């Protein structure tokens, strides 16, 4: 089934690359009703449409809770509703992405709305992490559990309803990352990458780290990621510049090391590694056939997980990839998928398959730490060192502005009609919403005079 889907999507992909431009929505709908186009295709193309031209949303905001940098974000996989965020001060917060309410503390701004906070664990809490949280993740099957780990060397499993830790696992080094498989049915492992080169597999049912994967050389493991195609496949990346693929059922060693620079070896000294710097980020593509890696050499590579070969596409160069794990995301549901990578104070985004020019999203002050794409809400959510979680939507919800404007105009028109029925209807003056009014040019007239001279 998945194979079938894949071929289909790719077929449409080549046919209607950018439906928003080529085919209007109405036409797509008529095609669908006539059976010429599958609904999934329309859905995908629409999703893709919303992934482009992202801007800071004028109306949506996430209620501010963190008093430190926001280090990681995760949206639950079951309902796609709850946003989990972990801060550098050890605090955790859960926001409801379906509960958009008017902002009470909006600093006099009209029409701005907030995603309400559901619950939070502040930094002073007894159960909270003592130091910075590096990774947070929902339990894939339920919103009753989530996990978090951080520089206090502890991986915690939380009961989301009680907001208490159910289990704690302590490690010898800083926990850089952990991951639970989203598709696993036969196991329940949490892969943990720490300061040591050994990747630990924690089984919550057993209550301990039952398995360790040795293969990385000296140094920390900065990225772990379960495959979304095969539940036993795990990818890891470390500061030994290698990204590796493991089958957790075989204890002998890694399945594959990604090496692809054979042709470009400069001298005999440098080993053929995945990156020229440590591998800090890993992500499988939506179909699970490819793996993208990000290294401190400021590059993004894509690898074929079957053959282990590098995909020969030139990805735009990144910047400001620091020596910590990069929480970037690849979108899944669109006909064309995008990568959103936090690079310094901006988010770099480009099409994964046809990377042209990268676009940069400027909005955070100081550096961006993480971003996650919320496909059900067609929005990108990012967290950064400026203690904010920002929401990015297509064109920053200008359409909504216009809609509001029209609605208000209609309302006023109706009212005037009713009140002054006998008086000849005046040309209703459409008041511009302030947000629109503010975006108009105001060249002064005295400059005009100057112009004439």
């Amino acid at each position, binding site marked *: 089934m998945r194979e079938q889907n894949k071929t289909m999507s790719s077929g449409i992909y080549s046919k209607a690359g950018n439906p928003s431009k080529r085919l209007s929505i109405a036409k797509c709908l008529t095609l669908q009703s006539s059976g010429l186009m599958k609904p999934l295709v329309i859905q995908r193309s629409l999703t893709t449409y919303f992934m482009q031209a992202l801007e800071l949303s004028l109306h949506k905001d996430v209620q501010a809770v963190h008093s430190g940098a926001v280090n990681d974000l995760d949206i639950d996989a079951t309902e796609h509703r709850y946003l989990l965020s972990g801060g550098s001060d050890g605090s955790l917060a859960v926001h409801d992405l379906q509960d958009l309410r008017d902002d009470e503390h909006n600093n006099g701004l009209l029409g701005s709305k907030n995603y309400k906070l559901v619950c939070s664990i502040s930094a002073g809490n007894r159960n909270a992490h003592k130091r910075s949280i590096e990774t947070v993740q929902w339990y894939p099957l339920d919103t009753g559990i989530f996990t978090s780990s951080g520089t206090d060397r502890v991986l915690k499993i939380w009961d989301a309803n009680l907001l208490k830790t159910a289990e704690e696992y302590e490690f010898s080094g800083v926990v850089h990352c952990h991951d639970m498989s989203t598709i696993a049915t036969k196991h329940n492992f949490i892969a943990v990458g720490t300061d040591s080169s050994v990747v630990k597999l924690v089984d919550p049912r057993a209550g301990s780290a039952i398995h360790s994967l040795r293969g990385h050389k000296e140094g920390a493991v900065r990225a772990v990621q379960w495959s979304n195609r095969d539940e036993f496949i795990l990818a890891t990346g470390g500061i030994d510049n290698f990204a590796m693929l493991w089958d957790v059922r075989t204890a002998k060693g890694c399945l594959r090391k990604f090496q692809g620079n054979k042709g470009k070896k400069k001298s005999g000294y440098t080993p053929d590694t995945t990156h020229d710097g440590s591998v800090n980020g890993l992500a499988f593509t939506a179909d699970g056939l490819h793996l993208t890696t990000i290294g401190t050499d400021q590059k993004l590579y894509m690898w074929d997980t079957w053959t282990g070969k590098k995909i020969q596409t030139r990805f735009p160069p990144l910047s400001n990839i620091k020596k910590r794990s990069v929480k970037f995301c690849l979108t899944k549901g669109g006909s064309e998928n995008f990568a959103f990578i936090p690079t310094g104070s*901006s988010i770099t985004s480009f099409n994964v398959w046809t990377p042209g020019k990268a676009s*940069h999203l*400027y909005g955070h002050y100081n550096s961006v730490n993480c971003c996650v794409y919320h496909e059900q809400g067609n929005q990108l959510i990012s967290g950064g060192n400026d*203690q904010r979680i920002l929401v990015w939507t297509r064109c920053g919800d200008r359409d909504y502005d216009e809609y509001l404007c029209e609605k208000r105009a209609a309302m006023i028109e109706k009212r005037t009609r009713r009140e002054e029925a006998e008086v000849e209807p005046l040309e209703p003056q459409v008041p511009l919403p302030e947000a629109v009014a503010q975006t108009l040019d105001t*060249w002064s007239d005295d400059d005009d005079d100057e112009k004439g001279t």
Partner: protein
Amino acid sequence: MDGFNIEKEIKNAGETLNKETLKLMDKCLYELTTTGSPSLDDTLMKKFKRFCRQSDDYVRYAFLLIMRQLNKKHSEIRLSAFQVADELFNRSHAFRETMVNHLQAVLALTTETETERPLPPPKSAAKKLKTDALHALQLWHDKYGQGYKKLVVGYNYLKNCKHVDFNDIRTQNQAERQRIENEEKRKEKIRTDKLAKVLKDIAELKPEIENCAREAESCLQLLLPTLADFVIPLWEESAAADKTVNGSSNENTVCESQELHLLADGGTHNQTAATSVTTDSRENQQIQDLTPDDRQAVNSEILNGNKAVHETSSVDVSVSEDNMKATPKENMLEKDTGGSGKHESSDDSDADNATEDEYEDMDASEDNLFAHGLPNPTFNLVLELPAPGPVSIQVTTDNRDVVCSLTDASKLITNNFLPQVVRWLEILGKNGARSEDIKAAIDLKRNLEDIKMKCMDLKLISMEQKKLQQADISDDDDFEEVPEKEGYEPHIPQHLRAEYALKEKAPSLLAVGTVPLDKSKLVSVNKHWSLKDRISTDNVSDPTSLAAALAKIKPKSSETATKTSLGSSSVHTTTNSEGQESTTVPVVAFGTDLAYWETPDQIEVPTVVKLDSLHRFWTPSETEPETPSQHDIAAVKNRIFYFTGKFEPVKWKCRAMMPNGKLCERMDRVKCPFHGKIVPRDKTGKPNGEQHPSTSIVIPGDKTSKRSKEQHPSTSVVDDIKPEKLEGNDEELPPWQDPELQREIELATGHDLGSARSQKLLDKKVKGKGKGKGKGKKKSKLTNIEAIKNTSRKRLENRIFNKGSMKRVCSTLDSADYRRVRDKFAYQFHYSLQ
């Protein structure tokens, strides 16, 4: 600014737009931002805005250009660029969008949000930039917050994360505030520590000080009982009866004016008494009106010091008892004291005469009533009892112990305790001690000072000194022992005698001019003392005498004047002006050349006998007389005159613009130590004209020549040309001359500096030259930040750490190392052979 390269973007943007316009924009912005002034040029700004209006692409391009300027490492450029940005931000949506997109970069460059990227040098501009940027951000947020989300985010970011206080635009970020707080805490701690220490000290030392003070006081009491001890009842009575004025000098003067009035009524006292009273008003006087009904007062004034030491307080009492008798005596006393200001010692016969006269006057008026035994109704007698001021006490065997302990105590107080207390007070005051502590310390200090003053007033004459004084009453001790001067010869050679003799006379001659003597006094002066007579009667034939010298100079003066060069012109200035105002001319003693005026070839040079043989007995039979060299003769012949010129007060100011916006108020003659040579400047302090800013307005040589020109209109043919030639042979205006300033100075000083001429030259120059000064100007508009860096340390660093010297040092060290290694190896090799 990730993935954002300004130069690249500018290049990209330039491809689609009109190249000419872009170039013009570039130039326009460059001019706008390099003015260095805190506000923008309006016309240029309008021009720039006109460019931007053409399309949004130009606006975006403008943003890139502004970003480029904002990246410059000069706060003035950044400030101007930010002001341009602010202007455009309020106009164009496109600009707002791009600006808001890159707001972080802009903020980093303008508000110092990143600690590792501080604002560049000119500090005042940087400060202004920061506050202005934050202020602008606040305004933008209020005005455009709804339309631009990132602006709001940025605003909140600064507010929440960087803790910028937008309500208080002075804006210190948290780090700064923290630092200040820490500093204050530290200071507070130091203060409290100091305070505690001082208080402890005070607690420790206070008993000791008080003991000492008590001791000194009791010693004083023993030595010199106060007046109050004797006359308490009388004094109190009189105080009740009449207004007794004592205390401050203010009240005293009032009292004295009354007194003056009374004295005038009486007509018996002359003015001198009153003056003597006023001059001594500083002294604490006690005036006792003993018989107020009769309006009689005995004015007995005892001056102490050199003149009236013999009068003691006991005299006062006697005077007050029989005031009638005291009157003439009292008067005499006043005469003495009043006249004492004028006459020096015993020699004044004229003063004696005067007193004699007044005596008679007074006697005539008083005799009538006095003969009848009646008190004179108009007669005033004011009795003034002086404060127990400087009283000298002789040290005898009786009181020696007391005096000893007193001196010890006073020494201890003045040398140790008083400075200590003063220091304490200082520390207490500075560190905000409690008022009680300070008050206690002040009381202590006052007490000590009181004792100190008393001890100082009390003149203690020790026994040894007394003996000495008896032996030699004259004020020999006024002369200090001076070591014998180098080159002092007790025996003056024959040929130099004349010179020495004249030298003695010179000061007396000076005195004739400077000290105006009263004719009436001079009448009685002995002829022998009159210097004028002596001069006239002196033998003119004697060539060494002053009269002869003057006689010789007079006819020659006109000749010398015509011949003189610039250096000797001063000579005839003095000689010539002698005729007009002989009194003010300083006369310089003349030397051997004048002595041998008529026979210049006979001048003897003081010969030095050189004993070649250093043996004690064996000497050559006759030492050959050394022939004086030409050089020696010249040394004797030549005379050196130091001409200092006349002091001209400086009447101009530097008037250079200072950073605080004021003009420099320094009044230097040629060069201001802060702003260089003084140049003419307009109202805003900018140098006038495009000349190089190097002007010396009045050079002394110039001035003297000018003055001499005024003084000798008849002989100035030569002189008049000279300064012209000196100043410049060509007909060009010297760079330091500015006609306007010259005119001003001329108006102020009344000297002709030739402003008209230089004005003409300036006009000519302006016509001739049109351009060619633009480049230098452009650079000078901005504050030179390199100048700040140009410290001595920097220069030394450049010297020491430059590549060449480093290399040299390294090579030297390397070679030394190498040599050591080589030697070591050689030694080892040597040993291994053995």
